[in-house]
């Protein structure tokens, strides 16, 4: 799997602080190293072919735009995109294989440079490659290739301008995501960050004639922008405080190193408030992009986009950008007293909240959307609990199985004319041509539910939950996450038991004729025989073709195969992902933490080294991991059984405990009634959207109207008043101009007389005074 060069192997095995030693092999005394050395080492220049990774997708964007301009009406855009992305993925692989352990940058061109005397602000169009970058880029380009392949079939109803537009935005997205992940400075990260936001906007609003899609796209962009404001301010403050935007310089910054040393002994009062604010601001950006409470509301609505988009952008890659940001800037987060605890708590709250909403939804794509929000909550909890490894591992496994789930749901949606209501579908897996979808969906569901040992989702989730129990003061987070895991297993298998097994039943959705091209009349390219006459006779589902099946199979395989990653380098770094993270800034540790870590290594291995480290607690008298395997394993199975009991069909398909005999009704209906209004409230997302609208959007709108009138009446009114004053004066004296010449003459004579009198009086007075 991973070809470690001899030097790297020695490095990894001997390092206490990887970055310190990279630069300075003589840094035997970690204390000295922490305060003096360049933590990231001398960052060299990498090979120029690395530039292919971002620029090939960009080429795809350009080519597809040209196809659109010349009116291409074939699948050429899809094949162009798949081809270019495959090359990009291959390039990423070779970047991974040729990586020799020391980070490097690749310079494309100068971007923003401002010079202040002898100092300067430099943000170039350059790319920074370390293991964290490689980890992210591997699954970004890999999944993008697969999903583009899937989309080539999925979007085929829109062949023509829409098809070009889709793949154009797709290419731009991968480019932006590459900039986000690979950028060598914070402004490049921000460029990618906003770029993926733009692509997300364009792709959610792909069906631009549908008002709900346009509204969802707008909401996504604006809610993200709120987060982006935090991110932007955090970036500016980083520059103002540390004097650099470049990762290589930032992570070797002496100030930052000093802060980390202070933080590692809990001496936060020695760290200036400005530095602590940075992490809190960046965190807001991460919450926006990764759909965390209170900024998660855009993600479920984003399901208005075509399903491949939901799978790639809103499940696998873009939404993990927040996790990446925190992992990348981990040293900055470590020096902030409240940032990481906040991240942990927000993640947990989001996980629980989204899971409760997910339980009550009927739209299968929305259920998946809420599960994404919930799983992202796990990742944030992991980051907050100082297990970047766990978070990154969960990002990776989640990317595979959630993409798989979305694509399987998308296949259903595509085949049943946009039908997504789980009450109107049943036994899909048994229909002709749907076998692969059924099996792969089951694998995806098992991963999301975290069934022990046989799924990769289990390993990554377990790593985070275990961390909660060994970190002092956070066991309540652990319990909440366990409860969430049970809920997750329940709602995941609720979908499976309702839609994929049981008696066969399908009501088509309302997008029969113009499926996926709601109003693209001229682009409409449907096979009339396939979808025709749905009103009169039977509806014929549209079984997935080879591209969809292949992609689903590959992803299903990948989400199982990812288990092996947990066993590579297990002893040393808790798995392959651990080794990747360990060799990056996400694993930036002060020597104090390392020493503590090493001292404790013998007792437990689940500890990455929390700030203010204490000896790990035993949970139920066991090692934390063993305990978690038991608890979450049992919890997951329990959730599946509950789902089977309430939603499963009669017979073996419902594990012999289900009792459903038709699509629309199940045992849960009766139970739900007993809870009174609560299920309805959960189905309505706890009215969070409505609350936001009532307390934020509507008042702001009213305020804007008030301002508008104020502008018209008061501000402009004052100006008009000034303009009116001369006119008023004129109005007063206008009657004096009567047009009677004699009147003028009298006035003039009178004026002369008055003048004379005044002059005489003045002269007399002057004479008198003299």
């Amino acid at each position, binding site marked *: 799997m991973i070809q470690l060069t001899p030097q790297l192997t020695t490095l990894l095995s001997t390092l206490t602080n990887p970055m310190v030693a990279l630069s300075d092999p003589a840094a035997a005394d970690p204390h000295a190293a922490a305060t003096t050395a360049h933590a990231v080492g001398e960052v060299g220049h990498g090979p120029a072919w690395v530039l292919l990774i971002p620029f090939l997708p960009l080429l795809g964007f350009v080519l597809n735009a040209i196809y659109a301009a010349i009116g291409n009406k074939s699948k050429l855009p899809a094949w162009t995109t798949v081809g270019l992305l495959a090359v990009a993925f291959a390039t990423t692989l070779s970047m991974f294989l040729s990586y020799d352990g020391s980070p490097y940058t690749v310079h494309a061109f100068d971007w923003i440079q401002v*010079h202040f005397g002898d100092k300067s602000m430099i943000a170039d169009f350059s790319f920074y490659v370390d293991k964290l970058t490689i980890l992210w880029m591997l699954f970004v380009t890999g999944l993008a290739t697969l999903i583009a392949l899937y989309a080539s079939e999925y979007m085929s109803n829109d062949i023509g301008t829409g098809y070009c537009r889709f793949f154009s935005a797709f290419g731009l997205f991968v480019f932006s995501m590459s900039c986000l992940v690979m950028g060598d400075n914070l402004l490049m990260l921000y460029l990618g960050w906003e770029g993926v936001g733009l692509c997300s906007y364009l792709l959610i609003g792909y069906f*631009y004639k549908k008002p709900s899609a346009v509204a969802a796209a707008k909401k996504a962009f*604006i809610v993200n*922008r709120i987060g*982006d404001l935090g991110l932007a301010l955090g970036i500016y403050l980083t520059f*103002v405080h540390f004097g650099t935007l470049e990762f290589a310089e930032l992570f070797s910054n002496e100030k930052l190193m000093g802060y980390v040393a202070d933080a590692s002994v809990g001496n936060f009062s020695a760290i200036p408030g400005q530095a602590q604010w940075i992490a809190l601001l960046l965190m807001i950006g991460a919450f926006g992009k990764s759909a965390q409470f209170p900024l998660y509301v855009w993600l479920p609505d984003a399901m208005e986009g075509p399903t491949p988009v939901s799978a790639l952008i809103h499940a696998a890659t873009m939404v993990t950008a927040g996790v990446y940001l925190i992992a990348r800037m981990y040293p900055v987060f470590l020096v902030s007293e409240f940032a990481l605890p906040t991240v942990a708590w927000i993640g947990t709250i989001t996980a629980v909240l989204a899971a409760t909403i997910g339980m009550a939804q009927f739209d299968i794509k929305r259920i998946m959307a809420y599960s994404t929000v919930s799983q992202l909550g796990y990742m944030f909890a992991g980051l907050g609990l100082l297990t970047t490894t766990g978070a990154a591992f969960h990002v990776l496994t989640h990317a595979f199985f959630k993409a798989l789930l979305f694509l399987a749901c998308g296949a259903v949606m595509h085949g049943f004319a946009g039908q997504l209501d789980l009450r109107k579908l049943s036994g899909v897996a048994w229909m002709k041509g749907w076998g692969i979808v059924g099996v792969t969906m089951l694998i995806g569901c098992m991963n999301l539910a975290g069934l022990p040992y046989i799924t990769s989702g289990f390993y990554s989730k377990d790593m985070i939950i275990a961390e909660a129990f060994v970190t002092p003061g956070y066991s309540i987070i652990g319990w909440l996450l366990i409860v969430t895991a049970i809920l997750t297993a329940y709602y995941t298998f609720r979908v499976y038991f309702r839609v994929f097994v049981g008696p066969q039943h399908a009501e088509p959705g309302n997008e029969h004729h113009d499926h996926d091209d709601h109003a693209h009349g001229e682009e409409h390219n449907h096979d009339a025989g396939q979808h025709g006459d749905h009103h009169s006779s039977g509806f014929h589902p549209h079984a997935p073709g080879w591209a969809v099946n292949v992609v689903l199979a590959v992803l299903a395989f990948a989400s199982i195969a990812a288990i092996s990653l947990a066993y590579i380098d297990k002893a040393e770094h808790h798995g392959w992902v651990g080794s990747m993270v360990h060799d990056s800034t996400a694993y930036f540790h002060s020597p104090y933490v390392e020493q503590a870590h090493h001292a404790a290594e013998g007792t437990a291995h689940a500890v990455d080294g929390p700030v203010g480290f204490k000896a790990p607690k035993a949970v139920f008298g066991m090692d934390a991991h063993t305990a978690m395997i038991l608890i979450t394993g049992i919890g997951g199975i329990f959730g599946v059984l509950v789902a089977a009991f309430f939603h499963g069909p009669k017979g073996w398909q419902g594990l012999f405990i289900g009792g459903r005999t038709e699509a629309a009704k199940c045992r849960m209906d009766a139970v739900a009634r007993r809870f009174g209004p609560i299920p309805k409230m959960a189905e309505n997302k706890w009215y969070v959207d409505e609350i936001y609208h009532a307390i934020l959007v509507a008042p702001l709108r009213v305020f804007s109207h008030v301002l508008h009138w104020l502008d018209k009446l008061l501000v402009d009114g004052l100006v008009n008043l000034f303009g009116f004053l001369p006119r008023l004066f004129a109005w007063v004296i206008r009657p004096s101009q009567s047009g009677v010449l004699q009147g003028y003459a009298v006035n003039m004579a009178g004026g002369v007389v008055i003048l004379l009198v005044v002059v005489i009086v003045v002269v007399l007075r002057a004479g008198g005074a003299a």
Partner: protein
Amino acid sequence: MSMEVIQLGLLMDLPILAALLIAFVGKPKNAYKIALITSLITVLPMLGLLASFDWSHGDQYQFAWSLSWLPDLGLNLSIGVDSVAMLLIALSVLLGPIVVLASKRAIIENRKMYYAWLMVLQAAMVGVFASRDLLLFYIFFEFTLLPMFILIRVFGSTNRVAASMKFFLYTFTGSMMTLAGMVYVVYFVSTQTGVWTLDIATLTHHAGAMSLTEQTWVLAALLAGFAVKVPLFPFHTWLPLAHTEAPTAGSVILAGVLLKLGTYGIYRFAIPLAPNAFYEYAPAIAVLAIIGIIYAGLICWVQTDIKKLVAYSSVSHLGFCVLGLAALNVSGFSGSILYMLSHGLSTGGLFLMIGFMYERYHTRDMRQVAGLASKMPVWATFMVFFAMASVGLPGLNGFPSEVLCLISAFQSDAAWSAAGEPGAWGSTLGPWFAVFAGTGMVIAAMYLLYMVGKICFGPLVEPKDHGHHGDPIPKDLTAREITSLVPLTAGCLFFGLQPTILLDAIEKPVNATVNLVEHSVESMNASNEQTDFNIIAEGANP
């Protein structure tokens, strides 16, 4: 007179010649051709100037030339450019062919008058930036008003009379006070040096010696004209009206260059002529700028007239520009000048798009026209592009300047920008300024996406009676229209991806201005400390 000076002169003379030709010789049907050819030819000497400009000495006036005009007044015809002025001239000249191209179908009657005045405006804009003489600057500054007034008054839409009057009177009233302030500075400098001079460089050099009270009055007088021009809240109300009523070309020039005369005036005159007063009142000015950003942005959000929306967005955007100036540091000035150069591209682009739509549907009301993406995909693509540029998407023109302006707000607080970090020297603004100004980013996304969502996306809505106004309506943008958009698009990308070229070009003058302010503030502080010390010595101040 060197070759370059002749080229600089040509930038002003060619349009004037063309204006005379159009007005007195040409036929109405040739007016468009003459204007287009002239504006294209004018680009050549401009390119020549860009090539021969010595960018490494950008802070010095180059291509300088002087001719005594009214010696009794000290007025010289004295021209020359530093790098900031050079770039602004390049922008003005480049906008010329674009607006002429965009006018072809919009202006059908009175073509001679229209193109002649457009050419005059072109010359006047170059003149403003090329002046090295205070009075000459002022003459050109005011002279831009007349052609613009006529463009709005004669060629505007329904409410054009009120709009043109308000535009003219408002800006003219303000700039009368500016003239008073300028005259006082000239008088003051003459008492200092014994020479009555209008040379900007000399005036700048000596004006800092004014007392704080004098500087405050001078600043108030100068800002009276420039703040109206920018426009800074609450002096903005003429702009939405003028923008809405002006013909497309007028709006583009107004947004692209004429508004920048205000910020350019602040940068070139208000700050150097009254540095201490500006330092003193920078927070207040920044507060006005930030109120403008938020206030105008929110007003945009509830507009139904699409052109008014874009007009208010200019008020909001220019707030960033003033914020950068108020920060009084290198990043702020750089960002602000970059904003002056780049803002006109995206906003001008939006005005062109709206103009093209208006030519087809004869309405600007978003309740009557919507969902045009299905009818005019190319138009919608450009619309989304310019909207995103206006939102400040990285990689496009608004972003680098917005970043620098916001960073400058942080940097100008000595406590936050720790000593030794770049850009730190004094305290005018602080993080809260950046936070509040930053909300402008969110608000910009709100109103621009609201606009795009309405006008481009959603179900198609078209006014019932469109198409009965003469010529048949082409479906999408024509080749001519696309040609006029391509340079703006390219400009947006260039400014977004290669701002370094421009930042390097303006580095010297910006640093010089910052040093000037820093020096004045420090010397005044030093003398104040001296006074404080005396007071302490006298025991008056425990």
